[in-house]
């Protein structure tokens, strides 16, 4: 009879369900009351779901008259107020949501930009993600970056972000209005790259670089870019709901998106994804259009967008410019204050190859940082040949010798040898009568091939792990990198810049935490690999050995240390660089040395001594001279020339260059020399001074990473090693 809903009943059920705050209790209640009435149940569920938004709609506070308390709802609270921000006016609308001019009221009153994210996403996760990056975001301080100040949720449950307010014009719009020429545009673009590089160094990837996120203001007639929205794309991307239908939602504009970002989202995006977007912006800035076709994304399914973005291949800026419609080309030339022909030639000269390198589909072929991109543009502006230029042989080499080739080649080789081995084995099976000897020999070969295959595969896996760990480290996630690397046999890792970074970072990270076995593990692997691949006689290479020596000794691995110093004297014994010689002497003589080591160091010793004789007393060389005196003194001590040792060390401690770590080592060595000469009182005085300095360092460095005291961490470790030796020596006497 009555087909309409029973309002009375629904009203009661809704009210009672709303009183039950616990979701389970609510469900149980509805189960009981709506048993067998699915339509009713569905209607109540829908009403419940609408309640929060409905309250926001009806919340009378938007009207509340000041002074008189509103009779119908909570007084005083204004809906144009979000947290401690008061919305003043709408200033923009972007892909993510709406942007408002807002006023922050506490702790300081100032105007900010507040962005409310539009998409229905998991607010808690967006905010959690933002909180996770907040520290790094806070560390970003750059004149060309607008700071993200805060994040939170609105009453209706949407995430919002608060940013430094930038009153500027979008990059392309600004350049066109000002009719900036190509050079001026590039100067501005370089500034943008510097800003992005700064963020990358702090471990922040933008993930949504586009001209509308680069605002330009003018300061004293100079255009100043400000990159906005840092951290927002990433925070929102991470918070995408997990199931596929919803994950399909697209965050950010596909126009400037790198192929790998479209494929994997933010999970594996790295700094090179931003380099790609910068390349797209560069092309638009110069050629007035994007380097690939951009369909109307709104008509496409997320999956279609994804596959289009992954497959598109960038055209060069000059091609893009030449294929503009005549009208558009005229307008673009006018805005760039140049003739179409001249502009096209300019683009062809260097910009084509620079933009294409930034826009490479394979990220290994791109510039590895925003700074490298900026440097190349700078080179071009200065009239030099940019590294991306195809005439540059280095570029061609790099293009062919990429990281991926190694595993691919290895796998191909392995498959071939395996197949060969298999054929041989079959052949043998058929002709069983053949000589046993031959069979054994062949089987041996097969085994070898198999072992080789396994080694190749493990190397490829190790390389992959190191590459991923390097990415983690570049975001400052050292612990996660360590987790990946744990258990990996480091001699499988092919030496590379990436592996050096990973070894050094992990080694130092462990050293700082006092885990000396692990520190020695990484740092000695680093020292061995770098001395093996880089044959240059330079302190860049030798500089990596001292931390390894320190870590080995501190971990108590004396056999490892012996092996290590034998390797060092072999590798650097014939050095022609006094700096290298001095570092090697120190690294090798942290413990008493056998005669063959001392002999092997003779040449280095005379090199350092000679350098010390002829050194001028100028300001830069004071520090180097002090270190030389220390190494000479240490060597004299190890040779048994205690008097000479004391003279040199005294000279070192009197240096104008103050370095507490060096002084500490000097005093510890002097204590040993004095003890050898029988001057116990003197020796005690030196040792006490060394130990006091060490104590002071430990206190200073205890809670903080920075210390007033000068010196590298490994210098202090070496001091401790020397001081322990001195104290043992004196106990023995």
């Amino acid at each position, binding site marked *: 009879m009555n087909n*309409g*809903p029973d*309002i009375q009943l*629904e*009203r*009661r059920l*809704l*009210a009672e369900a*709303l009183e039950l705050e616990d979701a389970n209790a609510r469900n149980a209640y509805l189960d009981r009351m709506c048993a067998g009435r699915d339509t009713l149940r569905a209607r109540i569920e*829908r*009403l*419940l779901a*609408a*309640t929060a*938004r*409905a*309250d*926001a*709609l*009806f919340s*009378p506070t*938007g*009207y*509340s*008259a*000041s002074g*008189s308390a*509103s*009779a*119908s709802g909570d007084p005083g609270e204004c*809906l*144009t107020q*979000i947290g401690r921000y008061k*919305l003043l006016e*709408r200033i923009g609308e972007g892909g993510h*949501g*709406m942007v*408002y001019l807002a006023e922050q009221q506490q702790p300081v009153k100032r105007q900010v930009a507040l962005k*409310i994210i*539009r998409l229905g996403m998991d607010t808690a996760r967006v905010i959690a993600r933002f909180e996770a990056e907040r520290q790094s975001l806070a560390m970003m301080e750059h004149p060309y970056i607008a700071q993200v100040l805060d994040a939170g949720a*609105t*009453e*209706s449950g*949407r995430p919002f972000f608060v940013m430094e307010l930038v009153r500027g014009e979008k990059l392309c719009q600004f350049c066109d209005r000002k009719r900036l020429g190509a050079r001026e545009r590039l100067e501005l673009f370089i500034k943008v790259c510097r800003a992005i590089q700064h963020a990358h160094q702090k471990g922040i990837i933008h993930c949504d670089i586009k001209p509308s996120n680069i605002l330009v203001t003018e300061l004293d007639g100079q255009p100043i870019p400000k990159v906005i929205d840092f951290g927002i794309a990433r925070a929102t991307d991470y918070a995408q709901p997990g199931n596929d239908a919803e994950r399909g939602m697209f965050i950010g504009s596909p126009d400037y998106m790198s192929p790998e970002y479209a494929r994997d989202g933010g999970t594996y995006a790295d700094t090179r994804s931003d380099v790609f977007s910068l390349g797209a912006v560069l092309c638009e800035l110069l050629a007035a259009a994007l380097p690939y076709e951009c369909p109307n994304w709104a008509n496409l399914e997320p999956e279609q967008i994804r596959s289009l973005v992954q497959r598109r291949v960038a055209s060069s800026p000059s091609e893009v410019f030449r294929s503009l419609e005549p009208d558009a080309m005229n307008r673009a030339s006018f805005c760039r204050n140049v003739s179409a022909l001249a502009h096209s030639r300019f683009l062809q000269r260097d910009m084509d190859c620079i933009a294409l390198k930034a826009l490479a589909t394979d990220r290994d072929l791109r510039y590895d940082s925003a700074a490298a991109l900026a440097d190349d543009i700078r080179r071009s502006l200065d009239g030099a040949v940019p590294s991306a230029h195809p005439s540059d042989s280095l570029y061609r080499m790099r293009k062919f010798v990429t990281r991926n080739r190694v595993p691919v080649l290895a796998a191909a080789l392995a498959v071939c040898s395996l197949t060969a081995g298999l054929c041989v084995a079959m052949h043998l099976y058929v002709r069983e009568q053949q000589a046993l000897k031959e069979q054994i020999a062949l089987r041996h070969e097969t085994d070898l091939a198999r072992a080789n295959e396994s080694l190749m595969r493990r190397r490829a896996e190790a390389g992959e792990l190191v590459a991923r760990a390097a990415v983690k480290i570049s975001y400052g996630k050292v612990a996660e990198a360590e987790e990946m690397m744990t258990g990996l046999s480091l001699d499988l890792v092919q030496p590379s810049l990436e592996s050096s970074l990973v070894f050094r970072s992990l080694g130092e990270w462990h050293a700082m935490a006092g885990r000396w076995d692990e520190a020695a593990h990484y740092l000695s692997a680093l020292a061995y690999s770098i001395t093996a691949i880089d044959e240059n006689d330079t302190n860049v290479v030798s500089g990596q050995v001292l931390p390894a020596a320190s870590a080995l000794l501190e971990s108590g691995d004396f056999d490892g240390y012996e092996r290590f110093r034998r390797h060092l004297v072999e590798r650097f014994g014939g050095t022609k660089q006094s700096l290298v010689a001095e570092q090697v002497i120190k690294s090798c003589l942290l413990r008493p040395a056998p005669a063959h080591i001392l002999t092997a160091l003779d040449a280095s010793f005379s090199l350092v001594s000679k350098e010390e004789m002829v050194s001028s007393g100028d300001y830069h060389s004071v520090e180097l001279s002090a270190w030389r005196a220390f190494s000479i003194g240490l060597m004299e001590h190890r040779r048994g020339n205690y008097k000479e040792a004391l003279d040199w060390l005294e000279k070192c401690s009197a240096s104008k260059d103050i370095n507490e770590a060096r002084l500490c080592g000097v005093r510890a060595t002097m204590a040993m020399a004095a003890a050898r000469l029988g001057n116990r009182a003197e020796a005690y005085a030196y040792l006490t001074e060394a130990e006091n300095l060490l104590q002071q360092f430990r206190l200073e460095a205890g809670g903080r990473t920075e210390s007033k005291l000068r010196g590298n961490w490994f210098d202090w470790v070496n001091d401790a090693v020397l001081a322990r030796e001195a104290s043992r020596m004196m106990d023995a006497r």
Partner: protein
Amino acid sequence: MEASNLTLLLNARSDSPACSSDELLPLVYDELRRMAAERMSDELRERTLQPTALVHEAWLRLHRGRHQQWNDRFHFFRVAVRTMRRILVDRARQRSSLRHCEGAGRVNIADIDLAAATPDDRVLLVNSALDELRKLDPEGARVVELKFFGGFSNKEVAWMTKVSERTVERQWAYAKAMVYQLLEELDR
């Protein structure tokens, strides 16, 4: 809790069932003005319409027929609230048509951020669902008019409609959710 002026006023007039608007004007003027003030946010007050002007306008519209007789003690307020609603909606339409240049149109509920919706947007949204709501839930529609457009408290509405406060609460909660749902349906 101190009874509001309106409640006192209603009490005072409840014994005389039929009275002319002329007699009522001085009595309800202040209260009507308070209702008007509540309808206007700070920013609105700066502009076009002062609360007093709104009251006068409401009064004028009420009195197209000069000697209207009120049927019962609440008739006047119901008519007054309905008139206020009409004024608010007209005004919001005018302003939003100025803003959007696309003729007076209701904004789409899914498009706007409710936390940041302007009072005009809200008035238009709620208004557009109210007639539909009246067909389904006439009591709820009356509560929405009295509370949202009239600014009356639950207690006042309860008193006027002769139900318990708790019932008003339930009617209000249900009506709000219904309005929101109706708006979503209108979007489709």
